[in-house]
């Protein structure tokens, strides 16, 4: 049994260790150490909780059993999950944090004595507000993340689902949550508490269904942020510093990532959240153009020839590479090119893939050294001095229309200046437009060679032809 003052200090220590864990991620060299800080912080928080409750009865045995069960499931998932499935894994994990927050809030509501929050039907006002906000945000995080998970996993179509009056409905539901929390504080009625949680589950679903697949980087970051705010809400209820600090850190981290992702698409956060992007648009227009304009297409042999005679190649990976699991074949190709003294670098657009940093992880998995991988602003000037750009699975992020046509939906979005390369190799399964539903001018340029195939298959063929 330790005093509550002492345990508060330990919780502070664990909060600081969590800050150091995030700080470590400023460079890959320090990141592993950072992760250990995070683990240490977690162990301290859990052990201190046991000690401060000081209850070593049979209950504790059960707690440890459940802890081990959850831990074993988590460890199993962590070791088995393929790196390409990282976005859905993170979405799934967010949903668990959200649900855990809801359950802790429910437990506190049903048994406020054990949390020192007053008695049933007479819970302290501040605590009641905090726990209902925590529960509401947690519920939104849970159901929203489930939808994001289903979309990323492909169980649910990635296409936006919209219906008329959607935004008004969301707004009304959002307002009703606040009104109900107000009445909850007046009446302490458990029925209202359950209603708040149910409506929040509904809001989570409604918030995410109108958002399309390629906006997922924003959605995941946003849900990341929500899970933090939910934890902070519960932290206030429990008067626990570690939870408050962590919740604030995670909340702001997710918010910053959402901001970075929105910037990278030149879209406002509001417009992403309102959703529906890419649902309709200029698809008909695209079909007409396709018939009119000639496209040069080639095979693996042509591609191998072009690259062999180049002195520098820039690789532009996108979501298609992840889908085709082409990263290992790609790395093999690059190894061969390097043997021929060709300089190879990778250019990554911030929203390539389905979550922030998605491409970097896949390339790291394929043993690509991280100092060969560059972000958009660091490499964009190099395209003009390079011989070949090898675009694999990316589309909208290379579209020059974003710089030239103010009417285009993606106008103003920062794009990779792929067209400035002497020649462009574009691996794609068909001429179909990307997520934004617009045609890519790059397909029709004279210096573009289209390679119509599955990304992995094509890369493997190129490897064979490089010998």
């Amino acid at each position, binding site marked *: 049994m330790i005093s509550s003052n002492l345990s508060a200090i330990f919780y502070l220590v664990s909060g600081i260790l*969590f800050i150091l864990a*995030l700080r470590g*991620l*400023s460079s*890959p060299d320090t*990141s*592993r150490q950072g*992760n250990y800080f995070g*683990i240490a912080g*977690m162990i301290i928080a859990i052990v201190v*909780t*046991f000690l401060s409750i000081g209850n070593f009865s049979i*209950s504790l045995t*059960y*707690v440890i059993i*459940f*802890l*081990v069960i*959850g831990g074993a*499931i*988590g*460890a199993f*998932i*962590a*070791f088995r999950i393929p*790196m390409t499935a*990282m976005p859905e*894994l*993170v979405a799934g*994990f*967010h949903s*668990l*944090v959200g649900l*855990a927050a809801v*359950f802790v809030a429910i*437990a506190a509501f049903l048994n406020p*004595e054990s*949390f020192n929050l007053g008695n049933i039907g007479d819970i302290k006002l501040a605590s009641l507000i905090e726990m209902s906000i925590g529960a509401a945000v947690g519920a939104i995080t849970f159901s929203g993340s489930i939808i994001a998970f289903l979309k990323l996993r492909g169980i649910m179509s990635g296409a936006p689902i919209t219906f008329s009056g959607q935004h008004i409905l969301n707004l009304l539901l959002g307002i009703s949550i606040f009104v109900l929390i107000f009445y909850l504080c007046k009446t302490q009625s458990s029925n209202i508490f359950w209603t708040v949680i149910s409506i929040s589950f509904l809001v989570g679903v409604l918030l995410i269904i109108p958002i399309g697949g390629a906006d997922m980087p924003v959605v995941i*970051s946003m849900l*990341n942020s929500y899970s*933090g705010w939910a*934890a902070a809400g519960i932290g206030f*209820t429990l*008067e626990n*510093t570690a939870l408050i*600090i*962590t919740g*604030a*850190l995670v*909340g702001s*981290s*997710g918010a*910053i990532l959402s901001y970075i992702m929105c910037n990278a698409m030149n879209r406002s956060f509001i417009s992403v959240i309102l959703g529906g992007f890419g649902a309709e648009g200029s698809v008909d227009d695209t079909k007409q153009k396709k018939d009119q304009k000639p496209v040069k297409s080639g095979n693996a042999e042509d591609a191998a020839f072009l690259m062999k005679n180049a002195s520098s190649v820039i690789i532009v990976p996108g979501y298609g590479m992840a889908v085709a699991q082409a990263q290992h074949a790609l790395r093999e190709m690059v190894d061969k090119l390097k043997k021929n003294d060709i300089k190879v670098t990778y250019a990554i657009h911030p929203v390539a893939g389905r979550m*922030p*940093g*998605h491409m970097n*992880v896949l390339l790291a998995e394929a043993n690509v050294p*991280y*100092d060969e*991988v560059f972000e958009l602003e660091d490499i964009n000037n190099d395209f003009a001095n390079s011989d070949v750009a090898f675009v694999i699975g990316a589309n909208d992020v290379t579209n020059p229309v974003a710089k030239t046509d103010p009417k285009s939906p993606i106008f103003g979005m920062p794009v990779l200046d792929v067209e400035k390369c002497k020649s462009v190799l574009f691996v794609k399964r068909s001429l179909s437009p990307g997520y934004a539903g617009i045609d890519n001018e790059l397909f029709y340029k004279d210096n573009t060679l289209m390679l119509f195939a599955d990304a992995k298959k094509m890369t493997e063929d190129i490897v064979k032809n490089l010998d």
Partner: protein
Amino acid sequence: MEIDPFIFRLSIFILSIFIGYYVVWSVTPSLHTPLMSVTNAISSVIIVGAIIAALAGVSESVFTISSIFGFIAIVLAAINIFGGFLVTQRMLQMYKKKKDKKK
């Protein structure tokens, strides 16, 4: 007049948001995916609340309605803690520098 302890917690909260803001901006973009998985793991410190709930109703019985919610929350949070830290570790192991290859 005495200051409400809530204000202290609010101060910690606001200051932590600022710390988070500056720390996260310094995270290199190539590590954004590990950032998400590690923030996910640390936000599962909510397990603290779950443990308190689970250890509550002792005198009568181990499993009350409230403690059952606590036990389920422990499982959920534990999945996240182990899963989150381990998968982050797995990812970070993969980030390697270029090895000096002599040609």
